[in-house]
């Protein structure tokens, strides 16, 4: 994959002006995740309404791929139920970004996805308790 696809204009736009960047006033679900290897960090917040994800926001610092991925992924979460969110796979996330990444950059792209998994796990844990 050459420049023009991996860092195409769309990806760079998402990096420079990410969708859903910021904090929620009253988040229902929240988690923070750090990619120790490169210093990328993300705080992911969800607001639920009537069983669906009404709003999503993220903050943090990261490389272009991690931010672009978070921008696209958080947008795709809106309106989904938690169960629907749970069914999204890592490969789908990468496919939707439309790029091929090596194992090292995979972690960057999936940081937001891993943060969501943590939120879902915490929530299931609470439920069980």
């Amino acid at each position, binding site marked *: 994959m*050459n420049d023009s696809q*991996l*860092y195409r*204009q769309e990806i760079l736009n998402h990096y420079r002006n990410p969708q859903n960047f910021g904090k929620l006033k009253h988040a229902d679900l929240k988690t923070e995740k750090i990619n120790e290897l490169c*210093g990328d960090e993300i705080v992911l917040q969800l607001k639920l309404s009537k069983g669906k994800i009404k709003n999503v926001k993220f903050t943090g610092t990261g490389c*272009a*791929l991690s931010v672009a991925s978070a921008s696209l992924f958080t947008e795709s979460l809106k309106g989904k139920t938690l169960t629907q969110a749970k069914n999204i796979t890592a490969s789908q996330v990468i496919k939707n970004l439309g790029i091929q990444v090596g194992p090292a*950059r995979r972690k*960057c792209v999936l940081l937001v996805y891993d943060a969501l998994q943590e939120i879902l796990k915490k929530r299931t844990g609470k439920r069980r308790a």
Partner: protein
Amino acid sequence: MRINNIRKQFPILSRKINGKPLIYFDTAATALKPKPVIEAITKYYSKCTANIHRGIHTLAQEATAQYESARKTVQKFINAKEYEEIIFTSGATESINLVARTFGEKFLKRGDEILVSEMEHHSNFVPWQVLAERKGLKLKFIPVKQDGSLDLKTYQKLLGRNTKLVAVSHVSNVLGVINPIKRIIKAAHKQGARVLIDAAQSAPHLPLDVQELNCDFLAFSGHKLMGPTGIGVLYGKKDLLSKMPPYKFGGHMVAKVTKEKTTYAALPHKFEAGTAPIAQAIGLAAAIRYLKNIGFKNIQTQEKKLVPYALRKLTSVPGLKLIGPALPQNRISVFSFTINNVPPHDIATLLDQAGIAVRAGHHCAQILHRKFGLSASVRASLYFYNTSKEINQLANRLKEITKIFNH
């Protein structure tokens, strides 16, 4: 020294990466291997395979001779007084851990102080941090100044009668700066403190003379000076090593073993439990011979050409900020930098697409990066097998990358 002829001796340089010729700027991570080293290792496996020190048969004797001759090669390489002062380990990290676990355990007590610098690689920091926690020692830091040099004034103030050990790198793997270790060692000894030198980044670039430096311990890794992975050296003064207890136990490091008690072998075997990294030691010796054939003089001449050129070319990239020394003096060919608005890992990926190999991240020096207000940087590390043409390509590609990101 004809660079093109030298480059032909490195088989990997004929590889294409993403359709482009490989431009390898990651020698600080590991050096490329020349044919003589690869052949020496393969020769052990194809012609001289045997375990060492115990065998009576011909192959065992040949292998033993080669392994111990490798030890003598290392001894000469760093001008150690005795061959028993050369311990083979799995690398600089194990060498430093060995000192922490044996010298540290036995000779340091609650309230003693260890000085490290803010620029240390994690391998010359975490072992001391853990030792300090376990034994109630105080860990103090020699500060790094903005220009990348050590704050020697503060070092002098930090040295006190409680200082028992100073652990410092000869050359920084991030800043490329060469530290004045002879001075540092002298000052430490005046206070009665021992000194461990992390020579992982200096051994490939600068001639080492442990007697002249008068360091108490010195560690380096084979793979960083064109040897194989899995082998390193701990140099220690004989009187220190003989007083240090072993920390790895088993075959070969023993003298007499009974159900009740075991006694230990003499130096250096006391610290070399189990089957030695035989092929690797032979490879290391071949790498040292190769290095000496080229000669440090030639290596430094080449670097003296590359360093100012690289500095000039890198600083011509808009938005590029070098970390540490901006001048060519007192440094080796390691350059860490950031670029405005372009995250380091994205720079590295885009460089990789052009066949250029660099490192992105904290380079095992999180404390140093935090000191400079960074979480990550890009590091291009060169060696005598790199060329100014390659530096041109790096600079041009970096300029392209800034254009992509500032579109």
